[in-house]
């Protein structure tokens, strides 16, 4: 198949897009330059849809609209893809041109729903006398460019690891490799031919028995019964294999969704974390309150007064000490004076007799003392309290418990508690948000479905085993009857024509089976060797050098692609292979398969050079642009960003026969220079190549990167 042109209408933002593909064998590359979000992936999907319908799109696309998301609800939109391509017929050795038209009408509803009508597919053969409508269009397309090989022909560079990624379940990955090899090497065609020839041989033998009579008829009856039983077992095996593949696929889908949901977290575990966080928050709030209380007590404490008002209080203390030293405090006791008066003798021994001067003086003193007693009592009390308080303060300071230290320690405990609480509250909020995202019922449903599917898988495997055993036994029986038939045939008279027909079928079947055997062994090895050479060349690794990281890559007998490092070690493609090498390996596999099979189809790659740079980047472009042998139909379509184009411009000059640039109006004014004056985002194409820009596609940084301005 060689693509000639494509016209896409109303597919996502591709409102009206026309592309001419390069059919120049010397410049087999078609370059579609587009920035991120400018329609590269939409175009890849549009091409896949045009060939395969919804089957060609990712499963989740079935529920999504093909038309633009801003389409007016209730207004039908016709989505259409018209692809013109050439196909070279192997048998007639003639080249035919076809036009494929796929269309569907979508009526957008509210809230992103869509009512999609039936798809209409037409395939027209273009001849010199006009166009001829082909019956069974999808069947013809499937034979020309099988949907099972869609990932070979239409590759998303960001998703190229399906043949190698350890993230993909090993049987599925091996199956992808096996399927690609089988289809491209033509093994499936040979297997169908082999079954057809078996049937033809059976039919011929029946004719021979009819003409030979006798033993032959009896034997052919038995042989047919044995063949029928073998057919039944073979069909059963195929049914179970298909069923197994379907169950396997369903399990993978469910597990993918479950992993996504569980990636958010396990609901029980999240609830446990929420409980623990709530407990921690309560404890921290208690610590916070306790620190605040401590701080309040500290502020109220005498130590704070002694620290903050040290000069004033010290001065007061000194004054009081002076009063004490002068025995002003504590003051003379009124009780003592009263006792002295009653005893009529002073402490000094003088008589305090009635009318004496001494008594008069003591009574004056008594009166005086009586007047000042409350003040002095207070002074005394204050003096004692102040002295004790000061001594306690000094002792505390000696122990290192200064106000500053106590303040710092309390404040630190408080801030720790506050920060701790805030952190826990934030965690709590996140956990609660996570919990709200988990659709627990869906998780339970998926778990149930996977468990049920696994039981079915196990039943399927058992049934497959039984079918294989039956096939083996029945094959032996068929072989025995065939031997008997030959012996009986030798005894009977069969016409030369019938014998020649039988010989032809048997010879043809022998060639078919031997060819199949060679393809399964020798050719898989050739794909493996070819891939190894290409890969090592791209990554610039010489396996003979001790310092080289890669020693080689190969396809194992179980169809796993493995990467070999020094010391007999194999590398994990996900963790030990960088993005550029992963891309190089997958592309090397696809290119090797095409080269060894000798079959040709367009290879359309979205973002082929992401994550690559330098020599690897250049060598990838060289590999994908260079046909391995005859290059009549060799065709490569690369959908690249400006960053990918950088540093390989000279190679694109050499290999690109056609170039276009796609831009999206949403990039104005941030990146695009010109305002297209459109109401909704739309993707447009211009004929600028990788060294040019025009009013439609010019971006602000183009001039600084040497991209020349061109008049549109």
């Amino acid at each position: 198949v060689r693509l000639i042109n494509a016209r896409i209408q109303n597919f996502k933002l591709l409102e009206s897009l026309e592309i001419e593909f390069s059919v120049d064998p010397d410049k087999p590359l078609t370059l579609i330059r587009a920035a991120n979000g400018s329609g590269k992936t939409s175009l890849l999907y549009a091409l896949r849809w045009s060939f395969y319908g919804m089957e060609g799109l990712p499963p989740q696309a079935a529920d999504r609209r093909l038309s633009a998301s801003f389409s007016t609800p209730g207004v039908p939109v016709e989505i259409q893809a018209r692809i013109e391509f050439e196909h070279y017929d192997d048998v007639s050795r003639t080249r035919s041109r076809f036009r494929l038209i796929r269309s569907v009408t979508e009526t957008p509803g509210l809230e992103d729903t869509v009512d999609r009508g039936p798809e209409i597919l037409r395939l027209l053969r273009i001849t010199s006398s006009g166009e001829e409508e082909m019956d069974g269009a999808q069947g013809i397309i499937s034979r020309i460019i099988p949907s099972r090989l869609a990932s070979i022909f239409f590759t998303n560079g960001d998703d190229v690891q399906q043949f190698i990624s350890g993230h993909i379940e090993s049987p599925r990955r091996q199956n992808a490799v096996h399927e690609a090899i089988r289809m491209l090497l033509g093994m499936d065609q040979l297997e169908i031919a082999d079954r057809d020839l078996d049937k033809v041989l059976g039919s011929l033998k029946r004719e021979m028995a009819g003409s030979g009579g006798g033993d032959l008829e009896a034997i052919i009856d038995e042989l047919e019964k044995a063949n029928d039983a073998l057919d039944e077992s073979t069909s059963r095996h195929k049914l179970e294999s298909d069923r197994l593949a379907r169950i396997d696929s369903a399990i993978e889908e469910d597990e993918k969704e479950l992993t996504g949901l569980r990636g958010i977290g396990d609901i029980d575990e999240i609830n446990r974390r929420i409980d623990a966080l709530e407990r921690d928050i309560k404890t921290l709030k208690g610590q916070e309150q306790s620190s605040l209380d401590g701080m309040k007590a500290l502020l109220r404490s005498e130590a704070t007064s002694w620290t903050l008002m040290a000069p004033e209080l010290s001065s007061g203390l000194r004054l009081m000490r002076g009063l004490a030293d002068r025995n002003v405090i504590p003051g003379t006791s009124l009780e003592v004076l009263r006792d002295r008066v009653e005893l009529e003798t002073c402490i000094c021994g003088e008589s305090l007799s009635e009318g004496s001067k001494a008594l008069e003086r003591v009574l004056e003193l008594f009166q005086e003392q009586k007047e000042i007693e409350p003040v002095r009592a207070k002074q005394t009390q204050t003096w004692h309290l102040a002295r004790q308080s000061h001594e306690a303060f000094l002792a505390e300071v000696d122990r290192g418990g200064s106000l500053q230290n106590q303040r710092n320690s309390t404040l630190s405990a408080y801030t720790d508690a506050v920060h701790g609480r805030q952190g826990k509250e934030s965690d709590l909020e996140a956990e609660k948000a996570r919990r709200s995202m988990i659709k627990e019922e869906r998780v339970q449903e998926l778990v149930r479905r996977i468990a049920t599917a696994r039981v079915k898988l196990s039943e399927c495997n058992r049934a497959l085993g039984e079918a294989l055993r039956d096939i083996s036994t029945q094959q032996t029986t068929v072989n025995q009857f065939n031997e008997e038939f030959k012996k009986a045939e030798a005894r009977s008279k069969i016409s030369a024509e019938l014998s020649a027909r039988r010989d032809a079928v048997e010879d043809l079947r022998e060639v078919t089976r031997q060819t199949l055997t060679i393809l399964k062994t020798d050719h898989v090895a050739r794909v493996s060797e070819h891939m190894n050479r290409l890969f090592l060349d791209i990554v610039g690794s010489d396996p003979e050098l001790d310092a080289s990281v890669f020693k080689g890559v190969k396809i194992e007998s179980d169809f796993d692609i493995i990467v070999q490092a020094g010391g007999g070690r194999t590398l994990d493609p996900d963790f030990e292979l960088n993005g550029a090498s992963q891309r190089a390996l997958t592309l090397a596999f696809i290119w090797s398969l095409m080269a060894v099979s000798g079959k040709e189809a367009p290879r359309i790659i979205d973002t082929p050079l992401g994550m690559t740079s330098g020599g690897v980047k250049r060598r990838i472009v060289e590999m994908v642009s260079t046909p391995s042998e005859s290059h009549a139909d060799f065709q490569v379509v690369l959908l690249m960003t400006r960053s990918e184009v950088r540093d390989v411009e000279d190679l694109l000059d050499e290999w690109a026969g056609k170039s276009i640039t796609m831009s999206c109006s949403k990039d104005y004014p941030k990146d695009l220079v010109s305002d297209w004056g459109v109401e909704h985002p739309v993707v447009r194409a211009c004929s600028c190549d990788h060294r040019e820009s025009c009013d439609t596609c010019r971006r602000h940084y183009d001039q600084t990167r040497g991209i020349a301005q061109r008049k549109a």
Partner: protein
Amino acid sequence: MSWRGDSNSLLSVAKDQVLGIPERYSGYRMDLVNLLVQVISLQSTESADVSRRREAKKLVSAFGDEAARKRKGTGK
């Protein structure tokens, strides 16, 4: 898809394998390879098993009859 040259294709393998078949008349092996191509190509036009096998039998029968005629000519 189209065959691109014969050196790497299924056909080239089949051409090697046919050498193990007796040359029942001069050119028999090459005719057999061409017959294989025709039988395989029926898959492109006849998707139903019954009709495809009927067509295959017609092709093989015609081939066998022609082979018988040529074999008589050569005495093999």
